[in-house]
Protein backbone atom coordinates (compact mmCIF):
# COMPACT_ATOMS: atom_id res chain seq x y z
CA UNK A 1 0.00 0.00 0.00
CA UNK A 2 1.35 3.40 -0.97
CA UNK A 3 0.53 5.97 1.67
CA UNK A 4 0.51 9.59 0.51
CA UNK A 5 0.48 11.83 3.59
CA UNK A 6 -2.23 14.45 3.15
CA UNK A 7 -1.56 16.97 5.87
CA UNK A 8 0.50 19.63 4.09
CA UNK A 9 -2.50 21.16 2.42
CA UNK A 10 -3.10 24.90 2.28
CA UNK A 11 -6.86 24.44 2.33
CA UNK A 12 -6.42 23.52 6.01
CA UNK A 13 -6.51 26.70 8.07
CA UNK A 14 -3.42 26.08 10.20
CA UNK A 15 -1.37 25.17 7.15
CA UNK A 16 -2.59 28.22 5.22
CA UNK A 17 -1.43 30.40 8.08
CA UNK A 18 1.95 28.66 8.22
CA UNK A 19 2.40 29.25 4.49
CA UNK A 20 1.47 32.93 4.77
CA UNK A 21 3.81 33.47 7.69
CA UNK A 22 6.56 31.25 6.25
CA UNK A 23 6.51 29.20 9.44
CA UNK A 24 9.07 26.58 8.38
CA UNK A 25 9.11 24.85 11.77
CA UNK A 26 5.41 24.06 11.53
CA UNK A 27 5.70 22.60 8.02
CA UNK A 28 8.79 20.60 8.94
CA UNK A 29 7.04 19.11 11.93
CA UNK A 30 4.13 18.05 9.71
CA UNK A 31 6.58 16.48 7.26
CA UNK A 32 8.54 14.61 9.90
CA UNK A 33 5.55 13.28 11.79
CA UNK A 34 4.04 11.96 8.55
CA UNK A 35 7.36 10.41 7.56
CA UNK A 36 7.68 8.67 10.92
CA UNK A 37 4.15 7.34 10.61
CA UNK A 38 5.16 5.47 7.47
CA UNK A 39 4.20 7.72 4.54
CA UNK A 40 5.75 6.88 1.19
CA UNK A 41 5.02 10.27 -0.35
CA UNK A 42 3.98 13.62 1.08
CA UNK A 43 1.23 15.52 -0.69
CA UNK A 44 2.08 19.21 -1.12
CA UNK A 45 -0.81 21.54 -1.79
CA UNK A 46 -0.21 25.27 -1.36
CA UNK A 47 -3.91 26.02 -1.74
CA UNK A 48 -3.24 29.68 -2.42
CA UNK A 49 -4.29 32.11 -5.15
CA UNK A 50 -2.82 31.58 -8.65
CA UNK A 51 -0.40 34.53 -8.36
CA UNK A 52 1.03 33.33 -5.05
CA UNK A 53 0.92 29.61 -5.65
CA UNK A 54 4.24 29.13 -7.54
CA UNK A 55 6.21 30.90 -4.80
CA UNK A 56 4.34 29.15 -2.04
CA UNK A 57 4.80 25.77 -3.70
CA UNK A 58 8.54 26.38 -4.12
CA UNK A 59 8.91 27.39 -0.49
CA UNK A 60 6.96 24.32 0.68
CA UNK A 61 9.05 21.93 -1.42
CA UNK A 62 12.32 23.36 -0.12
CA UNK A 63 11.12 23.45 3.46
CA UNK A 64 9.83 19.87 3.41
CA UNK A 65 13.00 18.56 1.79
CA UNK A 66 15.06 20.10 4.56
CA UNK A 67 13.06 18.04 7.04
CA UNK A 68 12.77 14.63 5.40
CA UNK A 69 13.80 12.59 2.40
CA UNK A 70 10.44 11.37 1.19
CA UNK A 71 9.44 11.99 -2.43
CA UNK A 72 6.60 14.46 -2.87
CA UNK A 73 3.22 14.47 -4.49
CA UNK A 74 2.86 17.92 -6.07
CA UNK A 75 -0.80 18.77 -5.75
CA UNK A 76 -1.94 21.60 -7.97
CA UNK A 77 -3.94 22.29 -11.12
CA UNK A 78 -1.74 25.29 -11.84
CA UNK A 79 1.06 24.47 -14.32
CA UNK A 80 3.17 27.37 -13.02
CA UNK A 81 3.04 26.08 -9.48
CA UNK A 82 3.85 22.56 -10.67
CA UNK A 83 6.83 23.87 -12.64
CA UNK A 84 8.09 25.73 -9.59
CA UNK A 85 7.86 22.52 -7.57
CA UNK A 86 9.37 20.31 -10.28
CA UNK A 87 12.41 22.57 -10.54
CA UNK A 88 13.26 21.92 -6.90
CA UNK A 89 12.40 18.30 -6.13
CA UNK A 90 15.21 15.95 -5.09
CA UNK A 91 13.34 12.78 -5.97
CA UNK A 92 10.92 11.86 -8.72
CA UNK A 93 7.54 13.12 -7.52
CA UNK A 94 3.96 12.24 -8.31
CA UNK A 95 1.86 14.94 -9.93
CA UNK A 96 -1.63 15.27 -8.52
CA UNK A 97 -3.45 15.34 -10.88
CA UNK A 98 -4.60 15.20 -14.48
CA UNK A 99 -8.24 14.65 -15.49
CA UNK A 100 -10.11 14.53 -18.76
CA UNK A 101 -10.57 18.31 -18.54
CA UNK A 102 -8.85 20.01 -21.46
CA UNK A 103 -6.91 22.63 -19.45
CA UNK A 104 -5.36 19.83 -17.38
CA UNK A 105 -4.54 17.71 -20.41
CA UNK A 106 -2.92 20.75 -22.02
CA UNK A 107 -1.25 22.20 -18.94
CA UNK A 108 -0.45 19.37 -16.52
CA UNK A 109 0.02 16.20 -18.57
CA UNK A 110 3.01 17.56 -20.62
CA UNK A 111 4.85 18.34 -17.36
CA UNK A 112 4.42 14.77 -16.12
CA UNK A 113 5.59 13.39 -19.45
CA UNK A 114 8.57 15.73 -19.65
CA UNK A 115 9.76 15.02 -16.11
CA UNK A 116 8.73 11.33 -16.18
CA UNK A 117 6.91 11.72 -12.88
CA UNK A 118 4.27 9.58 -11.29
CA UNK A 119 0.81 10.81 -12.15
CA UNK A 120 -2.63 10.67 -10.56
CA UNK A 121 -5.42 10.30 -13.12
CA UNK A 122 -8.92 11.42 -12.19
CA UNK A 123 -11.94 9.84 -13.83
CA UNK A 124 -13.76 13.07 -14.66
CA UNK A 125 -13.87 15.43 -17.61
CA UNK A 126 -15.37 18.76 -18.60
CA UNK A 127 -18.22 17.25 -20.57
CA UNK A 128 -19.98 15.19 -17.92
CA UNK A 129 -18.10 16.02 -14.74
CA UNK A 130 -17.96 12.83 -12.71
CA UNK A 131 -19.79 10.14 -14.70
CA UNK A 132 -22.61 8.53 -12.76
CA UNK A 133 -21.64 5.02 -13.83
CA UNK A 134 -18.47 2.97 -13.51
CA UNK A 135 -18.52 2.45 -17.29
CA UNK A 136 -18.46 6.21 -17.84
CA UNK A 137 -15.54 6.58 -15.47
CA UNK A 138 -13.64 3.73 -17.11
CA UNK A 139 -13.98 5.42 -20.48
CA UNK A 140 -12.14 8.46 -19.12
CA UNK A 141 -9.57 6.25 -17.38
CA UNK A 142 -8.86 4.43 -20.66
CA UNK A 143 -8.37 7.74 -22.45
CA UNK A 144 -6.02 9.13 -19.77
CA UNK A 145 -3.98 5.95 -19.33
CA UNK A 146 -3.61 5.86 -23.13
CA UNK A 147 -2.33 9.44 -23.22
CA UNK A 148 0.10 8.82 -20.35
CA UNK A 149 1.48 5.59 -21.83
CA UNK A 150 1.78 7.07 -25.32
CA UNK A 151 3.74 9.89 -23.73
CA UNK A 152 6.22 7.45 -22.23
CA UNK A 153 5.03 6.84 -18.67
CA UNK A 154 5.07 3.25 -17.40
CA UNK A 155 1.84 1.74 -16.14
CA UNK A 156 3.19 1.47 -12.60
CA UNK A 157 3.83 5.23 -12.51
CA UNK A 158 0.12 5.82 -12.80
CA UNK A 159 -2.25 6.21 -9.87
CA UNK A 160 -5.80 5.92 -11.17
CA UNK A 161 -8.45 7.64 -9.06
CA UNK A 162 -11.85 6.27 -10.06
CA UNK A 163 -13.44 8.91 -7.81
CA UNK A 164 -15.71 8.74 -4.84
CA UNK A 165 -19.03 10.54 -4.51
CA UNK A 166 -21.00 10.96 -1.33
CA UNK A 167 -23.12 8.08 -0.09
CA UNK A 168 -25.48 10.68 1.40
CA UNK A 169 -26.58 11.74 -2.06
CA UNK A 170 -26.80 8.34 -3.69
CA UNK A 171 -27.29 4.97 -2.07
CA UNK A 172 -25.26 3.22 -4.80
CA UNK A 173 -22.31 5.60 -4.81
CA UNK A 174 -20.11 3.19 -2.87
CA UNK A 175 -20.87 0.35 -5.27
CA UNK A 176 -20.03 2.51 -8.28
CA UNK A 177 -16.57 3.19 -6.88
CA UNK A 178 -15.98 -0.48 -6.02
CA UNK A 179 -16.96 -1.49 -9.52
CA UNK A 180 -14.73 1.17 -11.10
CA UNK A 181 -11.81 0.04 -8.93
CA UNK A 182 -12.31 -3.61 -9.86
CA UNK A 183 -12.56 -2.84 -13.58
CA UNK A 184 -9.49 -0.60 -13.49
CA UNK A 185 -7.51 -3.29 -11.66
CA UNK A 186 -8.50 -5.82 -14.30
CA UNK A 187 -7.60 -3.54 -17.22
CA UNK A 188 -4.31 -2.26 -15.79
CA UNK A 189 -2.80 -4.81 -13.39
CA UNK A 190 0.41 -2.83 -12.87
CA UNK A 191 -1.20 0.56 -12.27
CA UNK A 192 -1.84 1.86 -8.78
CA UNK A 193 -5.36 2.71 -7.77
CA UNK A 194 -5.94 5.50 -5.31
CA UNK A 195 -8.85 7.59 -4.13
CA UNK A 196 -9.96 10.45 -1.93
CA UNK A 197 -11.74 8.32 0.64
CA UNK A 198 -13.40 10.90 2.80
CA UNK A 199 -15.76 12.12 0.05
CA UNK A 200 -17.81 9.01 0.74
CA UNK A 201 -18.93 10.25 4.15
CA UNK A 202 -19.76 13.86 3.21
CA UNK A 203 -22.94 14.95 4.92
CA UNK A 204 -23.03 12.02 7.35
CA UNK A 205 -22.32 11.60 11.06
CA UNK A 206 -19.48 9.34 12.29
CA UNK A 207 -17.41 10.05 9.22
CA UNK A 208 -14.29 8.21 10.46
CA UNK A 209 -16.28 4.98 10.85
CA UNK A 210 -17.64 5.26 7.33
CA UNK A 211 -14.23 6.16 5.89
CA UNK A 212 -12.53 3.21 7.57
CA UNK A 213 -15.11 0.69 6.47
CA UNK A 214 -15.03 2.08 2.96
CA UNK A 215 -11.23 1.89 2.84
CA UNK A 216 -11.32 -1.78 3.76
CA UNK A 217 -13.85 -2.49 1.04
CA UNK A 218 -11.92 -0.48 -1.57
CA UNK A 219 -8.78 -2.50 -0.75
CA UNK A 220 -10.83 -5.66 -1.26
CA UNK A 221 -11.55 -4.45 -4.80
CA UNK A 222 -7.97 -3.51 -5.66
CA UNK A 223 -7.13 -0.13 -4.13
CA UNK A 224 -3.41 0.02 -3.30
CA UNK A 225 -2.66 3.71 -2.78
CA UNK A 226 -4.34 6.37 -0.70
CA UNK A 227 -3.98 10.02 0.23
CA UNK A 228 -4.65 9.88 3.95
CA UNK A 229 -3.52 11.08 7.37
CA UNK A 230 -0.84 8.51 8.26
CA UNK A 231 -1.07 9.51 11.91
CA UNK A 232 -4.64 8.27 12.06
CA UNK A 233 -4.12 5.09 14.10
CA UNK A 234 -7.51 3.62 13.37
CA UNK A 235 -7.44 4.26 9.64
CA UNK A 236 -3.95 2.84 9.36
CA UNK A 237 -5.05 -0.22 11.34
CA UNK A 238 -7.94 -0.84 8.93
CA UNK A 239 -5.60 -0.38 5.99
CA UNK A 240 -3.05 -2.91 7.22
CA UNK A 241 -5.68 -5.40 8.35
CA UNK A 242 -7.47 -5.21 4.99
CA UNK A 243 -4.22 -5.65 3.04
CA UNK A 244 -3.39 -8.63 5.16
CA UNK A 245 -6.82 -10.17 4.65
CA UNK A 246 -6.64 -9.88 0.86
CA UNK A 247 -3.34 -11.73 0.78
CA UNK A 248 -0.98 -8.81 0.26
CA UNK A 249 0.99 -9.16 3.49
CA UNK A 250 3.40 -12.09 3.49
CA UNK A 251 3.31 -13.92 6.81
CA UNK A 252 1.30 -10.95 8.11
CA UNK A 253 4.58 -9.19 8.77
CA UNK A 254 3.52 -5.63 7.90
CA UNK A 255 0.61 -5.94 10.27
CA UNK A 256 2.60 -7.49 13.09
CA UNK A 257 5.47 -5.03 12.76
CA UNK A 258 3.11 -2.07 12.79
CA UNK A 259 1.49 -3.50 15.91
CA UNK A 260 4.79 -4.06 17.69
CA UNK A 261 5.99 -0.55 16.89
CA UNK A 262 2.74 0.95 18.15
CA UNK A 263 1.71 2.39 14.76
CA UNK A 264 -1.62 0.59 14.97
CA UNK A 265 -3.76 -0.69 17.80
CA UNK A 266 -4.58 1.01 21.08
CA UNK A 267 -2.37 3.97 21.85
CA UNK A 268 -0.15 3.38 24.85
CA UNK A 269 1.29 6.40 26.52
Amino acid at each position, binding site marked *: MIIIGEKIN*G*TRKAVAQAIRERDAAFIKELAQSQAQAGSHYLDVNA*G*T*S*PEREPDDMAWLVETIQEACELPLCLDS*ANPKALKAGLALVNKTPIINSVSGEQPRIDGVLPLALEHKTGLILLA*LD*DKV*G*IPATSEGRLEIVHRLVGLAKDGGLAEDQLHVDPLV*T*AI*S*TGTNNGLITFDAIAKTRQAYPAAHITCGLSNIS*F*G*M*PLRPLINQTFLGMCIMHGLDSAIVDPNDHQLLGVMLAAEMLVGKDKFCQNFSRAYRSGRIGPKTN
Partner: protein
Amino acid sequence: MADLKELVSAVVEMREDEAMALTKKLLADGTPPLAVFDAYQAALEEIGKRFEQQLYFIPELIMSGEMMKAASEIIKPLLADQSGGQGKQRLGKVVIATVEGDIHDIGKNIVAMMMDLGGLEVRDLGVDVPADRIIAEAKDFGADIIGLSGLLTLAFDPMKQVVEKLQAEGLRDKIKVIIGGGQMDEQVCKYVGADAFVTDAVAGVNYCKGWLA
Protein backbone atom coordinates in the same frame (compact mmCIF):
# COMPACT_ATOMS: atom_id res chain seq x y z
CA MET B 1 -60.21 12.02 10.53
CA ALA B 2 -56.60 12.64 9.72
CA ASP B 3 -55.29 16.01 10.74
CA LEU B 4 -52.53 18.27 9.52
CA LYS B 5 -50.44 17.84 12.63
CA GLU B 6 -50.20 14.13 11.93
CA LEU B 7 -49.04 14.94 8.42
CA VAL B 8 -46.35 17.32 9.67
CA SER B 9 -45.07 14.72 12.09
CA ALA B 10 -45.10 11.96 9.45
CA VAL B 11 -42.99 14.10 7.11
CA VAL B 12 -40.63 15.25 9.86
CA GLU B 13 -40.13 11.67 11.04
CA MET B 14 -39.48 10.49 7.47
CA ARG B 15 -42.41 8.09 7.36
CA GLU B 16 -42.69 8.33 3.61
CA ASP B 17 -45.62 6.01 2.90
CA GLU B 18 -47.67 7.29 5.81
CA ALA B 19 -47.12 10.90 4.74
CA MET B 20 -48.32 10.16 1.24
CA ALA B 21 -51.37 8.25 2.49
CA LEU B 22 -52.23 11.09 4.87
CA THR B 23 -51.84 13.65 2.11
CA LYS B 24 -54.27 11.80 -0.11
CA LYS B 25 -56.73 11.26 2.71
CA LEU B 26 -56.65 14.89 3.83
CA LEU B 27 -57.32 16.09 0.31
CA ALA B 28 -60.10 13.53 -0.17
CA ASP B 29 -61.68 14.70 3.08
CA GLY B 30 -61.84 18.23 1.73
CA THR B 31 -58.91 19.86 3.50
CA PRO B 32 -57.89 22.95 1.52
CA PRO B 33 -54.90 22.05 -0.69
CA LEU B 34 -53.08 25.16 0.43
CA ALA B 35 -53.31 24.01 4.05
CA VAL B 36 -51.78 20.68 3.10
CA PHE B 37 -49.03 22.47 1.23
CA ASP B 38 -48.36 24.66 4.26
CA ALA B 39 -48.08 21.56 6.43
CA TYR B 40 -45.25 20.36 4.20
CA GLN B 41 -43.56 23.75 4.44
CA ALA B 42 -43.78 23.59 8.22
CA ALA B 43 -42.36 20.08 8.20
CA LEU B 44 -39.45 21.11 6.00
CA GLU B 45 -38.70 24.00 8.28
CA GLU B 46 -38.46 21.60 11.22
CA ILE B 47 -36.28 19.25 9.17
CA GLY B 48 -34.00 22.20 8.38
CA LYS B 49 -33.75 22.93 12.09
CA ARG B 50 -32.85 19.35 12.88
CA PHE B 51 -30.23 19.46 10.15
CA GLU B 52 -28.69 22.53 11.76
CA GLN B 53 -28.63 20.72 15.08
CA GLN B 54 -26.94 17.75 13.41
CA LEU B 55 -29.76 15.42 14.28
CA TYR B 56 -30.53 15.04 10.60
CA PHE B 57 -28.08 14.73 7.72
CA ILE B 58 -27.99 15.22 3.99
CA PRO B 59 -29.94 12.04 3.19
CA GLU B 60 -32.86 13.37 5.26
CA LEU B 61 -32.74 16.67 3.36
CA ILE B 62 -32.84 14.84 0.06
CA MET B 63 -35.55 12.46 1.20
CA SER B 64 -37.73 15.31 2.47
CA GLY B 65 -37.25 17.01 -0.88
CA GLU B 66 -38.54 13.92 -2.64
CA MET B 67 -41.50 13.64 -0.31
CA MET B 68 -42.34 17.28 -0.97
CA LYS B 69 -42.02 16.78 -4.71
CA ALA B 70 -44.29 13.76 -4.70
CA ALA B 71 -46.87 15.65 -2.65
CA SER B 72 -46.63 18.74 -4.88
CA GLU B 73 -47.56 16.66 -7.89
CA ILE B 74 -50.88 15.88 -6.25
CA ILE B 75 -51.46 19.25 -4.61
CA LYS B 76 -50.44 21.67 -7.37
CA PRO B 77 -53.18 20.72 -9.87
CA LEU B 78 -55.74 21.20 -7.10
CA LEU B 79 -54.30 24.61 -6.23
CA ALA B 80 -54.51 25.66 -9.88
CA ASP B 81 -58.13 24.44 -10.06
CA GLN B 82 -59.21 26.79 -7.34
CA SER B 83 -60.32 30.10 -8.79
CA GLY B 84 -57.65 32.73 -8.75
CA GLY B 85 -54.98 30.03 -8.40
CA GLN B 86 -53.93 30.62 -4.84
CA GLY B 87 -50.39 29.46 -5.62
CA LYS B 88 -48.33 31.29 -3.05
CA GLN B 89 -46.38 34.33 -4.06
CA ARG B 90 -42.75 33.39 -4.47
CA LEU B 91 -40.48 35.30 -2.09
CA GLY B 92 -37.88 36.22 -4.66
CA LYS B 93 -35.63 35.01 -7.45
CA VAL B 94 -32.24 33.35 -7.17
CA VAL B 95 -29.78 32.44 -9.88
CA ILE B 96 -27.44 29.75 -8.65
CA ALA B 97 -24.35 28.20 -10.25
CA THR B 98 -21.07 26.47 -9.58
CA VAL B 99 -18.49 28.89 -10.93
CA GLU B 100 -16.18 28.34 -13.87
CA GLY B 101 -13.33 25.94 -13.19
CA ASP B 102 -15.26 23.91 -10.62
CA ILE B 103 -17.63 21.06 -11.25
CA HIS B 104 -18.77 20.17 -7.75
CA ASP B 105 -22.52 20.10 -7.61
CA ILE B 106 -23.69 18.23 -4.51
CA GLY B 107 -23.84 21.33 -2.31
CA LYS B 108 -25.29 23.48 -5.04
CA ASN B 109 -28.01 20.97 -5.88
CA ILE B 110 -29.05 20.65 -2.27
CA VAL B 111 -29.17 24.41 -1.81
CA ALA B 112 -31.19 24.83 -5.02
CA MET B 113 -33.65 22.19 -3.88
CA MET B 114 -33.97 23.67 -0.40
CA MET B 115 -34.50 27.17 -1.82
CA ASP B 116 -37.18 25.93 -4.17
CA LEU B 117 -38.95 24.15 -1.33
CA GLY B 118 -38.51 27.21 0.85
CA GLY B 119 -40.53 29.37 -1.53
CA LEU B 120 -37.82 30.96 -3.64
CA GLU B 121 -37.83 30.86 -7.41
CA VAL B 122 -34.56 29.27 -8.50
CA ARG B 123 -32.77 29.15 -11.81
CA ASP B 124 -29.96 26.60 -11.55
CA LEU B 125 -27.31 27.11 -14.22
CA GLY B 126 -25.35 23.98 -13.45
CA VAL B 127 -21.58 23.67 -13.01
CA ASP B 128 -18.48 25.29 -14.52
CA VAL B 129 -20.49 28.39 -15.51
CA PRO B 130 -18.59 31.43 -16.86
CA ALA B 131 -19.16 34.79 -15.16
CA ASP B 132 -20.66 36.38 -18.27
CA ARG B 133 -23.34 33.75 -18.47
CA ILE B 134 -24.20 34.11 -14.79
CA ILE B 135 -24.66 37.86 -15.24
CA ALA B 136 -26.69 37.43 -18.43
CA GLU B 137 -29.00 34.86 -16.83
CA ALA B 138 -29.43 36.97 -13.70
CA LYS B 139 -30.51 39.93 -15.84
CA ASP B 140 -32.82 37.81 -17.94
CA PHE B 141 -34.39 36.18 -14.89
CA GLY B 142 -34.65 39.37 -12.88
CA ALA B 143 -32.72 37.78 -10.03
CA ASP B 144 -32.68 39.31 -6.56
CA ILE B 145 -29.81 37.10 -5.49
CA ILE B 146 -26.90 35.33 -7.16
CA GLY B 147 -25.69 32.21 -5.36
CA LEU B 148 -22.19 31.06 -6.28
CA SER B 149 -20.97 27.64 -5.32
CA GLY B 150 -17.46 26.24 -5.37
CA LEU B 151 -15.54 23.67 -3.42
CA LEU B 152 -12.03 24.40 -4.61
CA THR B 153 -9.80 27.32 -3.74
CA LEU B 154 -9.66 27.74 -7.52
CA ALA B 155 -13.24 28.96 -7.29
CA PHE B 156 -12.31 32.15 -5.43
CA ASP B 157 -11.15 34.15 -8.45
CA PRO B 158 -14.08 33.23 -10.72
CA MET B 159 -16.40 34.24 -7.87
CA LYS B 160 -14.61 37.57 -7.56
CA GLN B 161 -15.00 38.02 -11.31
CA VAL B 162 -18.76 37.67 -11.07
CA VAL B 163 -18.93 40.37 -8.42
CA GLU B 164 -16.68 42.67 -10.45
CA LYS B 165 -18.73 42.20 -13.60
CA LEU B 166 -21.90 42.82 -11.65
CA GLN B 167 -20.36 46.06 -10.47
CA ALA B 168 -19.31 47.02 -14.00
CA GLU B 169 -22.90 46.50 -15.13
CA GLY B 170 -24.14 48.79 -12.37
CA LEU B 171 -26.16 45.96 -10.83
CA ARG B 172 -24.23 45.40 -7.64
CA ASP B 173 -26.70 47.41 -5.53
CA LYS B 174 -29.68 45.52 -6.89
CA ILE B 175 -28.45 41.96 -6.59
CA LYS B 176 -27.13 40.32 -3.45
CA VAL B 177 -24.32 37.81 -3.84
CA ILE B 178 -23.89 34.82 -1.58
CA ILE B 179 -21.05 32.30 -1.88
CA GLY B 180 -21.11 28.76 -0.58
CA GLY B 181 -18.76 25.80 -0.24
CA GLY B 182 -16.51 24.00 2.18
CA GLN B 183 -13.62 26.46 1.85
CA MET B 184 -15.62 29.62 2.33
CA ASP B 185 -14.87 31.90 5.24
CA GLU B 186 -14.88 35.55 6.23
CA GLN B 187 -11.63 36.22 4.40
CA VAL B 188 -12.76 34.66 1.16
CA CYS B 189 -16.04 36.55 1.38
CA LYS B 190 -14.15 39.80 1.66
CA TYR B 191 -11.78 38.86 -1.16
CA VAL B 192 -14.65 37.97 -3.47
CA GLY B 193 -16.72 40.98 -2.43
CA ALA B 194 -19.80 38.88 -1.66
CA ASP B 195 -22.52 39.87 0.80
CA ALA B 196 -22.35 36.60 2.72
CA PHE B 197 -20.69 33.22 2.81
CA VAL B 198 -22.13 29.92 3.99
CA THR B 199 -20.85 26.40 4.40
CA ASP B 200 -24.16 24.59 4.58
CA ALA B 201 -27.40 24.57 2.64
CA VAL B 202 -29.83 25.50 5.39
CA ALA B 203 -27.78 28.55 6.37
CA GLY B 204 -27.77 29.62 2.70
CA VAL B 205 -31.53 29.43 2.44
CA ASN B 206 -31.95 31.33 5.70
CA TYR B 207 -29.70 34.16 4.50
CA CYS B 208 -31.63 34.53 1.27
CA LYS B 209 -35.00 34.47 2.98
CA GLY B 210 -33.72 37.10 5.40
CA TRP B 211 -32.70 39.41 2.56
CA LEU B 212 -36.04 39.04 0.82
CA ALA B 213 -38.21 39.44 3.89
